[in-house]
């Protein structure tokens, strides 16, 4: 099939960006969206032009590198699918496709479709962990975890940190990402001791990074390649409220619940 692409090109962080139109010729439907972009880039290079820069690595939908806004939908039309796992069979011959980078104040554009998602790492650095220095762990089977709990935790832990939730959210909110980590750790017995200081610290960091708030549009859940539910946001709010209520602001929440 042949396609018309309108791709956001931006030389650098400070540079002005604009859409440039490209033709993608005889694209096979077994190509992934990124392989289609490869074809376009090969042609550009042959013509002595600069290829379109975009983040990608695993191309298996797990590393969270790829990040394209395709026709106004983060990661494109197929639900629960990262850009690299989106195949061209979901498009039709002659279709026009708009490709844009993630857009958020916290995600400055570095070049073309590449943005800086370091803010997500900093949210994790603020508290998205269980303090368990190497060594001194007790036997794994001494900690019993209900299957239901671990399954729920795993649903949240599946987050690949792609930032599509932020990109899709009309408020540029990182609530789904942050809520997912808080839920993953907060649902496990190992995560209880730091549960409340964790939520206070991560939320504070999230705000400092200038992500927006959540007004419950639900766009993030639809865009999430791991289909993480907005229930994790409710859980984050609950823990946050508890943390403040129990004077656990940054305090060392005891292991209750």
């Amino acid at each position, binding site marked *: 099939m042949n396609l018309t692409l309108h791709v956001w090109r931006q030389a*650098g962080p400070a540079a002005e960006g604009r859409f440039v139109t490209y033709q993608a010729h005889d694209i096979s439907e077994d190509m992934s969206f990124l392989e289609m972009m490869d074809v376009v880039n090969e042609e550009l290079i042959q013509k002595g032009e600069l290829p379109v820069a975009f983040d990608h690595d695993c191309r298996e939908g797990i590393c969270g590198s790829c990040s394209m806004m395709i026709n106004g939908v983060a990661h494109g039309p*197929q639900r629960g699918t990262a850009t690299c796992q989106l195949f061209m069979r979901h498009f039709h011959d002659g279709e026009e496709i708009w490709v844009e980078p993630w857009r958020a104040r916290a995600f400055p554009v570095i070049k073309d479709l590449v943005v800086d998602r370091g803010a997500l*790492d900093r949210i994790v650095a603020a508290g998205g962990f269980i303090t368990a220095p190497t060594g001194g762990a007790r036997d794994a089977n001494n900690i*019993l*975890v209900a299957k239901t709990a671990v399954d729920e935790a795993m649903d949240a832990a599946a987050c690949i940190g792609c930032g599509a939730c932020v990109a899709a959210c009309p408020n540029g909110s990182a609530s789904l990402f942050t809520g997912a980590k808080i839920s993953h750790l907060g649902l496990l017995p190992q995560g209880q001791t730091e549960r409340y200081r964790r939520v206070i610290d991560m939320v504070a960091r999230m705000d400092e990074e200038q992500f927006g708030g959540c007004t419950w549009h639900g766009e993030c859940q639809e865009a999430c390649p791991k289909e993480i539910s907005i229930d994790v946001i409710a859980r984050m709010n609950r823990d946050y409220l508890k943390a403040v209520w129990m004077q656990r602001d940054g305090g060392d929440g005891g292991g209750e619940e």
Partner: protein
Amino acid sequence: MELNSRIPDGPIERKWDKHRFDMKLVNPANKRKFTVVVVGSGLAGASAAASLAELGYNVKCFCFQDSPRRAHSIAAQGGINAAKNYQNDGDSVWRLFYDTVKGGDYRSREANVYRLAELSVNIIDQCVAQGVPFAREYGGLLANRSFGGAQVSRTFYARGQTGQQLLLGAYQALERQVGLGRLRMYPRTEMLDLVVIDGRARGIVTRSLVTGEVESHPADAVILATGGYGNVFYLSTNAKGSNCTAIWRAYKRGAAFANPCYTQIHPTCIPQSGEHQSKLTLMSESLRNDGRVWVPKQKGDRRPPDQIPESERDYYLERMYPSFGNLSPRDIASRAAKRVCDEGRGVGPGGLGVYLDFADAIKRLGEQVIRERYGNLFEMYERITNDNPYKVPMRIYPAVHYTMGGLWVDYNLMSTIPGLHVGGEANFSDHGANRLGASALMQGLADGYFVLPATIGDYLGANKLAPVDASHPAFRDAERGVAERTRRLLSINGKRTVDSFHRELGKVMWDYCGMARNEAGLRHALERIPQIREEFWRNVNVPGSDAELNQALEKAGRVADFLELAELICTDALHRRESCGGHFREESQTPDGEALRDDEHFAYVAAWAYAGDGNAPVLHKEPLEFEHVHLSQRSYK
């Protein structure tokens, strides 16, 4: 160069304990005076960086992705082995040790493998403490599954995302140290050279992939944990960015490269769908627990699978290897697949594929159970192929997956350059000539959490290191070298894209140095590779500038290194006239086509030393003694 493996003496069960006692310590107050550079944020790198920072060292960690969490370890699916014997099915440290040595076709170092098996137990404890959501039984205890090459159930897993969950555990520990200001993370930063001063590794030179800025990072010790080089074949299950640059530059600075030809071809990958293919996708080996591998009995049978009656199907793994059946080790399963396809019994377009069929398992356990176990893998398969594996059998074919070879290291994981340590897939490691499933995650974490933090301390405690800083001429030279090379790549302005060269190289490697190798083919490859390399440096087209994010330039540098490494791989493959594990020399096979080792002549580690461009690399041999596992023709029949 002498290869001193520094294996502690004493009985094998006591070696590591004893060694830990004998090792020098650094007093806590002094630790922060030492800078340790860790290149790589995968399982090995992240766990080492976090653990060293926890100990109080001043750590700098580098990765080329935009976040340490994206290291290729994230893609590991199936699981991680540990000799916990939670299933009470007769597992033990000894058995894991034995299985790994045997699985590696008796080409690994007993002492290292034993230590690995010992530490496997602590890894699971550590990861659970960090909140890794391993699968559980209803009672709340940890669940296990079986993996290729083992008859016990010792594999721990988190759905089909084990590597992701383990890496996130290590990544979170790492970010915690970042938050505490004890560790500095450098994402989107590529190591382009190693700096050696007075015979010791004293730092690295990097290039920022965002600004192009070339920078020196002096250090007291350097750890490379930069992963495998499977992408030398262009098509592999590795991430697009996986590369050999870091270890190759170290090799050129004097680190010996061990067993480069030991590459693992994974039997269960999604077959290539066309020329445009940019990478191959693995379908976790764990699928072989419940899937049955088969092809039609007669050649060129083009009927759809459901129309081929049982009687006309050949479940060849179950037929050829009754005791291990569908769970026979990777090298064996891959070659068997190649064989049936060469016989013209392959399925799917081009006849390059075999069926992995879940019909029986679904009948036996019900679709729900199968969905529980492999749901996300099935989805991934359907996304890519547009077939529903609950209804039609999967089509799979072997693909390059893992490289057992890597930089040579001693028992302390130190290379032949003092101060340069290597962990994870980047070292030649504990897997011999073939790695068993679920053992790489185990090795990466054993290296990073437990071995390196101890041995780095020993190195720093035992040696008096003169202070160096970035103004040292050695750094200046390295920086100049890096800038110069980049400038050269940009100034060629030829006709061909980097990818076209990479594809060409990959094809040569796959055809002549792939699943089956022979003298003539390897000699041919050794002619072709220098030709491709020569054209590359004459005719490659790398657009853009050096002072910006330039992905074409990144690729070019990596492919340039692959073009050199490929030659070493073939040289090693040619010299090793035996078949062992992943290295199959057609000249050396049993009557029924199994790999035939030649222990008399080849029971050694082949460590190659760089001897300057244009000169043949020098071979050094580390003989392998086997006191505990007695050498035998590997059989899974």
